[in-house]
């Protein structure tokens, strides 16, 4: 098992990492068996229906791609073959890393632990700011994938004493793999979490949620215009997904990547926080994280610290209990503060946890319940 100390040493401090891309603060792992390039294996997909003339309609996400024979949907990883739909990424991750759980970020879920993080190629969005575009915007053939069936993922995660996390690209597009792996993880006593854009249909989301312990959703903006213009997606289905997750009882945290001039206006932040409080509750943690110029947005400057601080202030003024800043190690807003006694119950810097003052889910100082999964 890789200890937390070993991990930090391997990472070179971890806390110095700024971006949340695949490699920042991660230990690159290369288990599994390398497959020849250009040869993704096809496995039967779920969540689709047949249409006339060998077409199919995918039901995995709100795009509901109508896919011709021999074609793929928007995600690029699900293919119609003679009127049957297949996933080309089941068991074939192209990124396998050991991360601090704080990198996801999940701050109320096993702090200080490690996340055995896997991703396949493909995504059902195309965010102009994507930090992992090299895999999320690729087809399986373009990614250096390996064959790693669910049992192997769980075995490796267990060896590292980590939870399994589906992350980096968009787990919704490899949902069958997520479901099978999360089921295997639960059977083996290993926890499973997901980092997603939340652009999924209710039925498949409910299916995977049965087997998950925590989900972090990127709430990328709070206007339809933003989602359409910047992500080739829609806001409304994401909000529905958030309610589905909350109703499932699976632990939920939100991240809002603040992009200067795009989604960081006071009105948008305030509206978002009001919606979160009203529909999800004040205890859902919200992270405001710093944007780093990437992909199609290399011409936009990183988020000023002042913006993150201001967003956090707005969220707290709107009554959210757990509001964080992210991707700026040392900036105020990384630690968990007990809403009752105002003392720091989890002290963090970057991806590092320095102190934990929560016992049996309660603040050590005042006994207040701190929502989350702490052990």
């Amino acid at each position, binding site marked *: 098992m890789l200890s937390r100390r070993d991990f930090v040493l391997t990472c070179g401090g971890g806390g110095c990492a700024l971006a949340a891309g695949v490699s920042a603060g991660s230990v690159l792992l290369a288990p599994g068996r390398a497959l020849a*390039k*250009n040869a993704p294996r096809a496995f039967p997909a779920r969540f689709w229906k047949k249409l006339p*003339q*060998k077409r199919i309609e995918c039901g995995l996400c709100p*795009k509901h791609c*109508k896919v*011709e*024979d*021999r*074609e*793929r*949907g*928007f*995600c*690029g990883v699900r293919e119609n073959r003679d009127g049957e739909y297949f996933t080309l990424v089941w068991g074939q991750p192209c990124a396998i890393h050991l991360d601090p759980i704080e990198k996801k970020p999940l701050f109320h879920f096993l702090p200080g632990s490690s996340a055995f993080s896997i991703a396949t190629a493909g995504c059902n969005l*195309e965010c*102009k700011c994507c930090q992992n*575009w090299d895999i999320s*915007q*690729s*087809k399986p*053939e*373009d990614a250096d994938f390996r064959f790693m069936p669910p049992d192997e993922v769980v075995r490796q995660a267990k060896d590292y004493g980590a939870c399994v996390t589906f992350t980096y690209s968009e787990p919704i597009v490899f949902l069958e793999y997520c479901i099978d792996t999360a089921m295997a993880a639960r059977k083996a006593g290993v926890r499973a979490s997901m980092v997603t854009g939340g652009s999924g249909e209710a039925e498949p989301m409910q299916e995977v949620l049965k087997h998950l312990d925590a989900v972090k959703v990127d709430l990328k903006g709070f206007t339809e215009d933003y989602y359409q*213009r910047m992500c*080739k997606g829609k806001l409304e289905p994401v909000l529905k997904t958030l309610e589905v997750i909350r109703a499932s009882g699976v632990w939920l945290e939100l991240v809002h990547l603040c*992009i*200067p*001039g*795009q989604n*960081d206006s006071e009105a948008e932040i305030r509206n978002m926080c009001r919606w979160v409080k009203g529909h999800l509750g004040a205890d859902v943690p919200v992270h405001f994280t710093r944007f780093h110029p990437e*992909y*199609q*947005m290399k*011409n*936009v*400057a990183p988020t000023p610290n002042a913006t993150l601080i201001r967003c956090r202030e707005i969220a707290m003024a709107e009554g959210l209990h757990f509001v964080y800043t992210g991707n700026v190690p040392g900036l105020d807003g990384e630690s968990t503060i007990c809403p009752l006694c105002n003392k720091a119950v989890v002290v963090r810097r970057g991806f590092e946890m320095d102190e934990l003052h929560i016992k049996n889910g309660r603040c050590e100082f005042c006994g207040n319940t701190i929502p989350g999964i702490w052990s």
Partner: protein
Amino acid sequence: MAGDANSSDRRRFLQALGGAALAVAGCGSSCGSGRSAERRSDVGAVVAKGEPAHPTATEKPRVVVVRTKKSLTQGYDADRGALRTMLEAGLVALSGQKNTAAALARYVRPGERVGLKINGLAGRNAATHVELVDELSALLGKSDIDGEHQIAFDRFTSDLTASGYSSKPRGRGYRCVGNDEAGHEEELVQMPSSASRLSRVLTAQVDGVVNLPVLKQHMLSGMTGALKNNFGCIHNPNKMHIDNCDPYIAEVNAVPQIRSKQRLVIMDALRPVVDNGPSYQPGMGEVANLLLFATDLVAVDTVALGILEDLRGQRELPPLAKLGLAPTYLATSSKLGLGVSDRAGIEVITLDV
């Protein structure tokens, strides 16, 4: 706070586009093989020094429609002799030259590496006819473009194979390779609405491209022809099929590395797919026995759209616009300066052979 990312992207894109057009128009001997003091028109023909470019900025772009009454297709096989005749007639008419060799010399130079961008994704029934590419390859061979300097390409090797294209050299003929095998450039090409990695066949293995699309109705873009065929030059066409592929088709074709290599379009309309495309559906292929020739991708698609709508009308199928599938990307392409989408602004020559 930074400025508007989109408008900034658009500015950079248009600057690059303008720069590329200038570079191509004035590239002189630095283009292609660079063996002679020749120049290219903005897109398409290679023109010998002293001759007018075809078309010039003030001339209408020319589209040649060659048709035959011969029974060209048997199942999905096509008559090679008839195709050769059509090819020769079309090339001569398009170029205004006296013979095929002189005509081809307008578009490709001896020793250049020529990409044959076929549409191979729908299998043998609805891909660019192998016989057409074989015959073109033979003509290129006679114009000192050896088979080893000809590469037929599209997205996947498996698609090429399924469409009847071998991945091995066809005797002394051309090679066939999928982008999945050749790979894509690491560097992203930025467009206003998206970003892509380009096929290494396009960027590194060919000097110019003969665009060989198939005319088909398309359930997402309305129609697929020469412009959409260039989706096969990028790694992520799956991201660009939303909103009737508009403005994505136009923006991809405006990418300088793609645009500058377009030399010639020969559209396979032997048996267009008139409905429920782009995959092949039994009964949806309409024998038309047509080949279209052009250097203006927008113009040839505009003419092809008229043909497609006519064929649909004969079957009492509704106009594409009524289905919400008007190929609006044609007008967008025209606005980006890629060619002419106004039918009245196109010179159409129809030949019967």
